[in-house]
């Protein structure tokens, strides 16, 4: 168990982030956190954990110690409905399909080929997209499924070259695959537009897209648009990479970042955990990331995804009538 402490000055208050990481049995970690909460009366909020089953442990602790709890990953609604101290911050891509449809409309209903990898979270999105397109009468010329280790798409691209009707290639590939696919496509069909799921995108990938001529369309959180100017998000991503000991950020980092920002913005007006809980419950304001609304159960009612086109090493909001 490693304990890490970082400091953040927020309107005169010093906020400590204390991270508990564990690889051992979850029960053991839970008992350790419990002991820590017992000995530290100044803890204002709990954040975590990864899955719903593990989040339930934290939710129980939140209820026991009456401390607000924010989860980024749990999908089990009952955790939040049954416990008044637990709130969800799961970024639900509720309108992901609608945004993709907007881009399809923007491209004037192109004939498309869809390629999906076998990672379940990505694959399922691909299937939802295909169903949605078929339902709305769009033309899908071909659908291709590949393994997630596959990096060589030359045969597939060769096949695409022979297809005269093709207007758009839609990818549901993982991050590394997408970089390779773009490099290879750029070689053979440098003007074919590409639409990808925004799930895999993050700002630090953008330098890899330099020299790619293909128009790239996707969706991204609103604050990615100002990534280059935003030092706050830069420094957060640095902290995030360092804390996890990995060399790159991944697509879940912004969610955690956003959740922490929310807690930080509410802390100055909350003098006790119960006031923080009330603030979370009634929170309806605008923030850095745009308007995000909680409902009474702690779920976000609307998110900040925007359709984007990627070029010149940055995200640009797609402007359409």
């Amino acid at each position, binding site marked *: 168990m490693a304990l890490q402490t970082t400091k953040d000055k927020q309107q005169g208050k010093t906020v400590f982030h204390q991270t508990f990481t564990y690889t051992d049995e979850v029960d053991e970690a839970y008992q350790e956190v419990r002991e820590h909460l017992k000995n530290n009366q100044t803890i204002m909020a709990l954040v975590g954990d990864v899955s719903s089953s593990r989040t339930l442990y934290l939710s129980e602790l939140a209820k026991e110690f009456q401390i607000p709890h924010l989860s980024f990953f749990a999908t089990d609604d009952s955790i939040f409905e049954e416990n008044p101290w637990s709130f969800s911050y799961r970024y639900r891509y509720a309108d992901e399909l609608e945004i993709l449809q907007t881009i399809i409309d923007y491209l004037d209903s192109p004939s498309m080929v869809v390629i999906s990898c076998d990672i379940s979270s990505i694959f399922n999105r691909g299937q939802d997209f295909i169903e949605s397109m078929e339902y709305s009468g769009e033309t899908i010329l071909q659908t291709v499924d590949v393994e997630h280790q596959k990096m060589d798409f030359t045969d597939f691209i060769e096949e695409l070259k022979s297809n005269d009707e093709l207007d758009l290639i839609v990818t549901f590939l993982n991050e590394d695959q997408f970089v390779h696919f773009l490099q290879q496509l750029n070689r053979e069909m440098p003007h074919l537009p590409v639409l990808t799921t925004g799930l895999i995108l993050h700002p630090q990938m953008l330098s890899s897209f330099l020299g790619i001529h293909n128009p790239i369309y996707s969706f991204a959180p609103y604050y990615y648009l100002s990534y280059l100017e935003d030092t706050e998000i830069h420094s957060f991503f640095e902290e995030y990479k*360092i804390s996890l000991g990995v060399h790159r950020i991944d697509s879940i980092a912004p969610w955690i970042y956003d959740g922490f920002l929310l807690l930080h913005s509410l802390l100055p007006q909350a003098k006790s955990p119960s006031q923080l809980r009330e603030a979370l419950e009634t929170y309806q304001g605008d923030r850095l990331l745009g308007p995000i609304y909680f409902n009474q159960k702690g779920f976000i009612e609307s998110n900040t995804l925007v359709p984007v086109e990627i070029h010149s090493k940055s995200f640009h909001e797609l402007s359409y009538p």
Partner: protein
Amino acid sequence: MMLDIERGQKTLRWRFFFQFIVASLLVTIIMGAIIFRTIRSNLLDDYAQRAMETMNRYEERIHVLLSLEEENLALLYRISSPKEYGNLLRILIEKEKYNASWIVNRGGTVTFADNPLFLGYSFLGNHVFKKALLQEEPSIHICFDHTIHSRTIQIAFPLFLDDGRFEQIAIHELNPDWIEEILAAEHSEQEDILLLSNGGVVFLGFGDSIYRRGFYEPGRPPSLHDFGLSLAEIKGAGLQYQKIVRDDHLVTYKRMEGPLGIIAHRVSVEKIENDLWSLFYLVLLGSFIALLLFFPLGNYHAARAMRPIERLSKEVELTLKGEQEEIQEPHKEFSLLVHAFNRAYAEKREAQRERELTYQGFKTVLDSMDTAIYVVDLKNHTTLFLNRAGEEAWGQKAKKSPFILPFIKERAHTNQSFTPSTERSWESFDQKDNTWLEYREMSIHWFDGREVLLGMARDITERKQREELLQTNWFIKSILESLPYPFLVIDRESRKIQLANSTAYQLGSKDAKTCYDLIYNRNKPCEECIINTIVETREPITFEKIQKDKEGRREVLEAHSYPIFNDRREVAKIIYYTIDITERKEAEERLKEYTKDIEEKRKEIEDLYHQLDQEIEKAVKVHERSLPKTIPQIEEISIGAYYQPAKKLGGDFYHVIKKEDRLFIYLSDVTGHGIDGAMVSAFIKEAIESYLSLKKDTTSPGSILSHLDRQYRRENYPEEYFICIFLLVIDLNTFEASYLGAGFQNPPLLKIGQRQMYLVNSGLPISTTIPRELLAFKEKRVLLTKNSSLLLTTDGLPDQKRGRENYDNRLQEIFFKNASDPPEVIIHRIKEDFKDYNGSLQGDDDITLLVLEVEPERRKGRHIEIERDMQGLKRLQKWALSLEDLKLEEKILSSLEELIVLLIEHDQDRKKTLKIHVQIDPKLIFVTIEVEEEEFFREDRLKSFIEKIKREENRLVIERESYTTAFLNDRGNKAFLLVEKNGISN
């Protein structure tokens, strides 16, 4: 005094001693801390210096390794022609230290690659490519490569053609594991090394204590947080090393030359801490030894400091005792003090003599005064002086020393002020001595200069007594004067008036001196004087006398005489006063006349009430007679009803009428419970019956109520009456019921099978105050099927209150629960429950219940009429045996027989007919015995039957565990026998 001086000297000596010890200890601790800090700092510096040397060594090694690799590559490219680059890259990839290698043209496109897949890839966004392109020099960059998904050291250097043109850039990605392996082999186990990228991400790390664990993914690379470092600290790192102590480790870090990032070194400071603890214990031991040495030294120092003080103290003591005039010895250390003391002491002696003389004069003067004078110390309240008069007053106690005057002690207890700023005086009563004292007090300065309380106390008892006497006389006189009638005190012997109020002198002459002169205007005593009687009887006398007042009017007086006794218990004086009771007497006479009149009126009213009661009795009978005596017998339908008026005469009414194939049922509630209510009920009955007999075709509830409304308005009843009515018409062929309510707020309850329903239809009540246009009779329909039960009730039952709740919910519950029972049973159950709820069946309002049931198929019933004699009994037995399908068990029959025998035995007129109706369903057996005449069945007779059943349960009662109940209807012409038994089968 001597003891005090000795104790003071000892304290002073201890103080010298402790000050010496404390000062010595402080010096020792400060010295120890300085030594400790210096050694610790040196130790840490030493560790840090070693760490820096290690880091420098590693940095140099990395630079050397990378330079060598760079030179090797440069050599390879120098000896290869551009055409051979492809082969060169393929050879290089076989070495494990390379992850990937590319040759990129100036446009950023890969022209050669160890993996053909990369041919044509764009390197425009690549940092090391851009740097090499711009600077035309080799460059190194450590980063994470998304295409090969690995951390990597990128080495890029421009390749020049033979003619010196710069066309291409070679990019090689070195696997950092290669360096890590080499350095780890040279590494000491006691320390950890981390190499971080400029962004703070760990790039290389070796050392045993670097753990690789984390929640995100198993075996994650270590983080700088594992070293206790923060990102801010890393960003601020320079080329000079910096050191911090975190989590028992000394961490040293610095920025490396070039683009290689940060190097951090960590070593456990456990050893330093151990050394420091040893040092700490050493310093502690030194301090302890020093403390032991300081004890004798301190003692010696204190004794030496005390010597001149002790000598001087002895001299002062002798001087104060008067054994010498002044301090004799020179006392060099205290010469100034000695000189000042001698001078002050001489002055003090002189002043003392003067004060003594003044005090004697003061005492002589005060002793000569007869007022008690006291002087009290303001601090401890002891008496400093008491003059002779004071000693006489409190002398006994004054012998005690120090003495506190009793009243001063009392004031001290009650926290009263002792320091009057100006002179203060007050009077006080001493209950013990029964004396009044006047006190005067002021604060003055006493001879020795302190502020004291000077007080004087004077006996003022005599003056107070005089004042009180004057006040008492005035008080009595005021009382007498306030009396509105004459009041006299007469001397027994002389009959002279000794005391009289001014009203008394209005009886006669103002100059009258005797009672006979004043009251009777005589010049000699009366022959029959009441004073003589009082002297004889020694008792007070009261008598009335009639006389005429000054204006000649008759007045009645009540005269009172009381004896006043002297010391010898003889009557000495007489109190005499008269009260005018003329008005009272007149009022008494008038009252007598009134009482006589009232008695006569009461008799008249009593007669009227008697007549009225007889009339009401008749009206009750009329109302009761108008209620249906019998309810029509209809196949498949059972009906039971119950009626209980709130007062003698009720406003509720119900009726059940069968006309051809229709059944008309209505319940009405009229405002008022008197004759008027009964009359309106009679009107309703009359109106509906006449309508039904005349209009045989249009018999819908709407048309009936419209007719009722029309007739009611025609009769022009007063406005205060309201008719609330619920009317139900059942088609006996189809069992379809149409219903309509007017002002009927309690919807009838209907249960069909398991379905619970409310027949809601409440319009406005029928009244002349409500315009006809507002009445809209809209009937509703419901289909009654087998096993339907309907409860109709007026508001008396559901609205009955107990505390805040009313009976409504309970009524619904009990009806819906027992809806499958026969109507009479349901009514019996509701009555029992209501009695339990209300205490009696008598409610605040009329109670009317009507239960209708479409008999369920499961229930079977038979009917027989028998004569009430032994013949009839035999017929019954025979009949019962024939009822095979009912399976009427022998025990039930014997119980029934028992009841009939009882009825025969108890009644002389045996020739009357008994109607017996038996119903059986899986839950119960219900027997109805009916006779024609009302009040036939009596409660007491039935009670003895039930008791008998219980006594002889084994013999008589139907089956064990069964429950038998018998009850009567309210007319007394029906007796019911109910047997509830779970075990009885069909």
